[in-house]
């Protein structure tokens, strides 16, 4: 069995090296271009992170130099300040609540659109898709008034609800094809086995859509983590600020203390960076992978 299984794969592997030799080997130019682009992307981030390890004097002296000596006091100051942790907490609460809301509502909406046959299901799908073309910038003033009238101004709820709404289009667009790909026979088999529509949803759809759900969950979380404009309008007290707002406030407060601002900035983006690089593979998997029967 194993021999049968391995020999073809070995054969294809060999064939691909044989045939693809000329194609697979990259010329030196490829590396130059690739490293150039990677460098362009990474340089600002590296500058911010490394800049946090310098003093303001060092930065004025040689703006692009390396820290000499390395100073950790900027980072220590930020990490020991209560306002930073307060804002990390706010960002986490907003991010997690948004993610949960998006995932729960998104899976429910997508399941109905994908697998129920009813009049207007296509129109509803188009409606959600149209949401993609609706920028938050346009809606921000009425949205602010609405949130204020709901009594959610200056509270995390006031940013969580609109964020869920604005993340739903992407979620629905990603999840509907994903759920449509679940074979019809699976639903029929489950129906004969005694699972109703809800039973099928909880026992089949939910476990089978985990890769897609992870994708939309991460996208929603990162979007919420980086969201700036909405909190800017809704939140007006520093204790309620999320990290992007906090960075902004911190920057204007310590505008002369460049090194400390750099440290604050890098600390606020690192969680999202780590999160994204950890799950990057699963995001792609959720976008491409359908359910295999």
């Amino acid at each position, binding site marked *: 069995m194993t021999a049968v299984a391995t020999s073809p794969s070995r054969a294809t592997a060999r064939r691909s090296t044989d045939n693809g030799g000329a194609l697979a080997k990259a010329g030196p130019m490829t590396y130059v271009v690739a490293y150039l682009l990677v460098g362009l992307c990474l340089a600002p981030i590296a500058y911010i992170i490394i800049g946090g390890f310098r003093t303001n004097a060092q930065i004025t002296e040689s703006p692009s130099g390396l820290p000499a000596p390395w100073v950790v006091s900027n980072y220590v100051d930020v990490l020991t300040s209560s306002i930073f942790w307060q804002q990390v907490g706010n960002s986490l609460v907003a991010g997690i609540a948004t993610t949960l809301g998006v995932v729960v509502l998104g899976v429910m909406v997508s399941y109905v659109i994908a697998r129920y046959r009813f009049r207007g299901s296509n129109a509803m799908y188009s409606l959600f898709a149209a949401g993609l073309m609706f920028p938050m910038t346009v809606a921000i003033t009425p949205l602010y008034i609405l949130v204020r009238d709901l009594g959610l101004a200056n509270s995390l709820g006031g940013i969580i609800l609109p964020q869920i709404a604005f993340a739903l289009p992407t979620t629905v667009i990603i999840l509907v094809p994903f759920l449509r790909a679940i074979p019809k*026979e*699976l639903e*029929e*088999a489950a129906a*004969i086995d005694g*699972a*109703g529509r809800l*039973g099928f949803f909880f026992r089949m759809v939910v*476990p089978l859509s985990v890769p897609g759900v992870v994708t939309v969950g991460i996208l929603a979380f990162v979007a919420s983590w980086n969201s700036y404009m909405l909190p800017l309008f809704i939140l007006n007290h520093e204790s309620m600020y999320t990290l992007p707002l906090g960075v902004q406030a911190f920057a204007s407060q310590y505008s002369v203390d460049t090194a400390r601002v750099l440290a604050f900035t890098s600390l606020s983006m690192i969680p999202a960076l780590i999160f994204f690089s950890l799950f990057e593979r699963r995001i792609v998997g959720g976008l491409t992978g359908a359910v295999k029967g």
Partner: protein
Amino acid sequence: MSETTHNRINADTLHDGSSGTYLPVKGTVTTMATVTYDKASRIYPGTERPAVDQLDLHIEDGEFLVLVGPSGCGKSTSLRMLAGLEDVNGGRILIGDKDVTHIQPKDRDIAMVFQNYALYPHMTVADNMGFALKIAGTPKADIRARVEEAAKILDLTEYLDRKPKALSGGQRQRVAMGRAIVRQPQVFLMDEPLSNLDAKLRVQTRTQIASLQRRLGVTTVYVTHDQTEALTMGDRIAVLKDGLLQQVGTPRDMYDTPANVFVAGFIGSPAMNLGTFKVNGGFAEVGPARIPVSRAAIAALGAEDNGKITLGFRPESLDVVSQAEASAFPVEVNIVEELGSDAFVYGTLKGSLADADVHSGAGDNQVIVRIDPRNVPAKGERIFVAIRPGEEHLFGAGSGLRLPA
């Protein structure tokens, strides 16, 4: 949910009555799981012609019935109507004495094996097989015992903890069977369960399924497009075409006395040769040959038949004879197919056949003749064959219906 649980408990007490054995053994099931289609019709929305047209069919308790026909004949639809996956637009369907026409699939006490198996990809083999019982709220220990029992029968014990992805096609097929067995249903429904297997495995699995069904004694409705599967597996066969039931009978009935031209051409491999010939003075004129036609058959010919008769003869009903015989007709050999145990000549009927319309499984104007594999004619050679007396099939040329011999 509570309703389901309630139903399952009833069914379980019924089955577990035979202490020790978890699987129903022939004779211990007390209800009569007959299946009756009573003028059941299915018309798909937006279509004129019914996909299944007033199907009348009665399946006995413990019987293995095969629904067979070309694609689009309504066989799968009929099965899905019985499963409750397809609405019934007219008539009734009964399981035992219970009218199930408008009952949910889960309450029909049936189990179905799908063509692509429809195994739950995120569950292990054991969970797949025990899923229905789990939904029904059967105690875990019982589920485990029943799953293990079924796994033993199907040789799946070592794979119980694997996911379907890690199984071969044949193993997946067995898991799908196991899922049906574990439920101990009144009726098994199988929708072309072998068509995703390779040829050799299909033949093996065919006999396994048939013997398993005999052993369990559970009423089974089996859909296939393969007439060999139908002949080898079924207690009885029902042939459908265009949503209409053509004939029901044992494999022997179908082979020996096909009710019409369609069944005659469909059942048997290689297919029967069928030709339409003029009847003249009690004889059908097949080229130079004159084949006697009984008085009763001629009397049964109607106006629509226009004095012509459709003569059917199986490749295995032909003998190679000398030219001198009155009933011999010439066949020019196009190709010879040698199978070791048999050899088949694919040839063209020769002679004055102006009005004749001959066809067979090999195509128009072709006839197939089984010959002695040790004495094979050459390509292009002309052989004379005669139909063995009593082995010809006569049909009205217009009606297509069988004529009395």
